[in-house]
């Protein structure tokens, strides 16, 4: 489907930049929320496990604390028990700590203590007939008051301490002013739990006992009591007790600083709630009973209503969970009230068998997580909002950008389209091409190409017309140009000839450097040796000669003379001779024969040593030879220098001759053999590496020629020959006179010239050498030079034997 350019660009912008980025961003968001949720749930589990563990520790600690506090009260109860039992067994031992009490009988027949003397109140139920015995008992039990008072005043948890007798007497601190009205007329102690729970049948061990919660007849509201039986022998005189109100338990005992805003409450073994803090009240939908407004006198135990028994709760789910906790092995359960999740931990308080329950709202545990979760959600939402804003801005930007971009591309193309239409109508060269001003390289290139094409087309038409008009003129011009080119070619050819010559020269120079440096090395070393040798000989010779017998002196000088007679031996021969000398010296048992033999050879002594036997048996022979050597080496080194100088001069002479350029091309009388030998000198170092040189020169007449140019011929032919043999083989040089010609034969044992190129080797620029080693002009130059001398060059070739023959006519000077 074809679409406008800007729409295409707009689409491609959207799909290539917006969509992938959006996809990636959405994926990142999903990933973010996913990871956040995953981490939250992981952390919640972790926190929960940690909370459970901590809760166990905390609850056990708190239960111990509470147990201790209750135990303290039990201990106080034991004190009471001890004191009071002592009183009953020794009734005559009594005190009246607050003076004589005043008793009266109330209107309802209750016998009671009228005056508050700082001690406890006293009540005798109207059920009991008051005789002198009862009166005396009421009086004497004043003895109990200091302890009762102490227990109450020194223990903030305790609200009251009392003694109830079997005959319905009640002594209670703190003092109750209207005690007759408070209790009513005929209370019977056996009817109340704070009495009967400690009687002989229920408490045979006579230990302190904790009651369940009950409503206090003394008007202190709801409470529990720690009670102890008071025996006189086996007779139960009464039951004493210490009252702790539920309010006090809640405020003073259960007020624990628990983590996670947890709460503790107490439940009796049968499920009855003993003390319930306010917070837990709300969860269980109960209102704890603390204070009470008394409308009637209590004549029997008033326990807490059934609804306070968790095992009898209306909500069967709660009952089931509590039962599971009470009977199950685990001290911790997940507890659910309606929809809310809690942890419920129980600890049994040993001294009362009450269950201390800890209730922790799971939400409280998870509060930090919930805060984090909320934060992460907020961040997520913020990112989404920012992304939406960004994409709105980005989208607007893209729309604008793509429009500009499309225009930028489309506009020059449209212009170009218009112009192409114009070109076909107007090819004659008047069409002006407007600039497209595009910033796109390709479009710019298109414009450039178009411009070029139009210009070419215009030029083409123009030149076609012109060519048509001026063909004749053109031909003339071309001819002129051709002749000029020909001239250039000639110059170039001359330059090439010169460069070939220089190339050959360059190769020569490298080899010649070696040839010159070698004699120079010898010269320097020899001079050095002479200097050092001179010292030894001059200073040591005279003294040594003095000590030597005359015949040995002569012998020594003869030896020196013989050594000085230059007779070059090869190193191989020298080695052989050294061995012989050493062997001979060893048979004479001369000390250090090896060293002496070497010295003899080093000084150039190359003849038999038998005549010198006596000399060699001289003990000082080593030093004598050393001095002799120093003398001989003066000459040996001088000879070496002479030879080296000769060698170097020869090479330099050859170079000088070779480098002599006669630009005028003057013809001089020349000895061809000499001419050839000079070039040969220059090639000596290449030849000696493995080429056997055979010379066969006849006596030929001098000819008139240009020796410089002929040097070129020999250089090229020798160079080719050496190259063909790869520096190993046999090179034969022959100079002969044949008729009116001096003929030079140069024969090599190289690989020969293959038949297929035999006809081409004299062509200029034809070469078999690798690129850069030669320009293929060598043989062309050779032929030209030979032809310039009215001679000719020929060759025969087969593998292993190739001969070039240069024929030079024997002429007189004026003939050339």
């Amino acid at each position, binding site marked *: 489907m074809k679409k406008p350019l800007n729409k295409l660009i707009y689409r491609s912008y959207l799909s290539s930049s917006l969509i992938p980025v959006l996809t990636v961003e959405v994926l990142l968001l999903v990933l973010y929320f996913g990871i956040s949720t995953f981490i939250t749930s992981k952390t919640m589990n972790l926190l929960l496990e940690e909370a459970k563990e901590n809760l166990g520790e905390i609850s056990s600690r708190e239960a111990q604390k509470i147990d201790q506090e209750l135990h303290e009260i039990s201990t106080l109860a034991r004190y009471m028990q001890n004191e009071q039992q002592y009183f009953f067994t020794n009734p005559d031992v009594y005190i009246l700590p607050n003076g004589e009490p005043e008793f009266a009988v109330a209107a309802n027949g209750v016998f009671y203590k009228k005056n508050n003397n700082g001690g406890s109140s006293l009540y005798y139920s109207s059920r009991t007939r008051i005789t002198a015995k009862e009166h005396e008992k009421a009086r004497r039990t004043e003895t109990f008051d200091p302890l009762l008072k102490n227990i109450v005043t020194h223990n903030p948890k305790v609200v009251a301490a009392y003694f109830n007798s079997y005959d319905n007497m009640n002594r209670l601190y703190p003092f109750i002013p209207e005690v007759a009205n408070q209790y009513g007329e005929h209370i019977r102690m056996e009817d109340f739990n704070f009495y009967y729970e400690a009687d002989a049948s229920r408490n045979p061990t006579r230990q302190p006992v904790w009651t369940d919660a009950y409503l206090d007849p003394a008007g202190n509201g709801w409470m529990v009591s720690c009670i102890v039986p008071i025996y006189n022998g086996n007779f139960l005189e009464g039951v004493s007790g210490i009252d702790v109100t539920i309010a006090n338990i809640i405020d003073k005992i259960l007020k624990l600083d628990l983590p996670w805003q947890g709460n503790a409450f107490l439940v009796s073994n049968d499920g009855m709630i003993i003390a319930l803090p306010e917070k837990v009240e709300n969860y269980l939908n109960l209102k704890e009973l603390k204070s009470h407004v008394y409308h009637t006198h209590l004549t029997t135990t008033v326990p807490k209503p059934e609804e306070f028994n968790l095992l009898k709760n209306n909500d069967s789910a709660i009952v089931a969970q509590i039962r599971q906790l009470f009977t199950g092995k685990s001290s911790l359960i997940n507890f659910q009230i309606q929809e809310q999740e809690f942890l419920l931990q129980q600890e049994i308080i040993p001294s009362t068998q009450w269950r201390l329950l800890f209730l922790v709202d799971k939400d409280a545990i998870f509060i930090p997580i919930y805060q984090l979760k909320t934060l992460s959600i907020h961040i997520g939402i913020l990112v989404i909002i920012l992304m939406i804003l960004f994409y709105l801005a980005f989208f607007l930007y893209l729309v604008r950008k793509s429009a500009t971009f499309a225009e930028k591309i489309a506009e020059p193309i449209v212009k170009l389209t218009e112009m192409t239409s114009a070109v076909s109508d107007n090819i004659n060269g008047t069409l002006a091409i407007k600039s497209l001003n595009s910033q796109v390289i390709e479009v710019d290139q298109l414009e450039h190409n178009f411009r070029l094409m139009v210009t070419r087309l215009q030029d083409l038409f123009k030149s076609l017309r012109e060519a048509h008009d001026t063909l004749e003129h053109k031909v003339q011009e071309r001819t002129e140009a051709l002749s000029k080119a020909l001239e250039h070619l000639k110059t170039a050819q001359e330059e090439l000839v010169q460069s070939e010559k220089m190339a050959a020269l360059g190769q020569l120079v490298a080899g010649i450097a*070696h040839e010159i*440096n070698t004699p*120079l090395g010898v010269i320097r*070393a020899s001079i*050095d040796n002479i200097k050092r040798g001179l010292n030894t000989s001059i200073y040591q010779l005279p003294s040594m000669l003095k000590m030597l017998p005359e015949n040995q002196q002569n012998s020594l000088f003869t030896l020196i003379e013989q050594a000085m007679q230059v007779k070059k031996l090869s*190193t191989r021969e020298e080695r052989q001779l050294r061995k012989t000398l050493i062997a001979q010296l060893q048979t004479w048992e001369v000390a250090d024969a090896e060293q002496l033999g*070497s010295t003899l050879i080093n000084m150039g002594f190359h003849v038999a040593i038998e005549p010198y036997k006596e000399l060699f048996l001289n003990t000082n022979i080593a030093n004598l030879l050393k001095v002799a050597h120093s003398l001989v080496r003066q000459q040996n080194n001088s000879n*070496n220098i002479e030879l080296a100088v000769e060698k170097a001069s020869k090479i330099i002479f050859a170079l000088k001759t070779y480098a002599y350029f006669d630009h005028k091309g003057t013809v001089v009388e020349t000895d061809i053999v000499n001419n050839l030998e000079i070039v040969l000198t220059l090639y000596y170092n290449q030849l*000696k590496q493995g080429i056997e040189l055979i010379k066969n020169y006849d006596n030929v007449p001098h000819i008139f020629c240009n020796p410089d140019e002929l040097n070129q011929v020999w250089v090229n032919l020798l160079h080719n020959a050496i190259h063909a043999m790869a520096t190993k083989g046999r090179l034969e040089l022959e100079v002969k006179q044949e008729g009116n010609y001096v003929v030079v034969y140069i024969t090599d044992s190289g690989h020969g010239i293959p038949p297929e190129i035999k006809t081409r080797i004299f062509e200029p620029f034809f070469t078999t050498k690798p690129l850069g080693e030669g320009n293929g002009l060598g043989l062309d130059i050779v032929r030209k030079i030979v032809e310039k001398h009215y001679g000719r060059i020929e060759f025969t070739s087969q593998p292993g034997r190739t001969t070039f023959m240069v024929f030079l006519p024997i002429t007189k000077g004026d003939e050339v």
Partner: protein
Amino acid sequence: MTKKSVILCVDDEVSILVSLREQLSDYFGDQYQYELAESPEEAWEVLNELQLEDKELAIVISDWLMPGTKGDEFLIAVNQKFPQALKLMLTGQASEEAVKRAQIEANLHTCLRKPWRIKELINAVESAIPN
């Protein structure tokens, strides 16, 4: 026969060899046995003899441009058979490639240029000999 270490000089120019021997023996005296060879082929003959006599090759000093085998090739071959021997080149002219090649493949210690100074020669030999 005492077993001295050997210094072997190889050059196609006998006067070079003789001069070398004189310089070395002046300086090192009878510490070494000095052997001369005019070509690598002859040098191998000497080396074979030395092996038969169980003598240690301490130093080889070779020219580069010689008939037949070139100095670098010769030293590479020597290095293969006598890796512990010190290799020196003494030459009037050698291509840079040949010297480099000898340095890499023949463990060439120094390349001395002709004409050389005795100090250079002695320094080169001493710098590679522990004592």
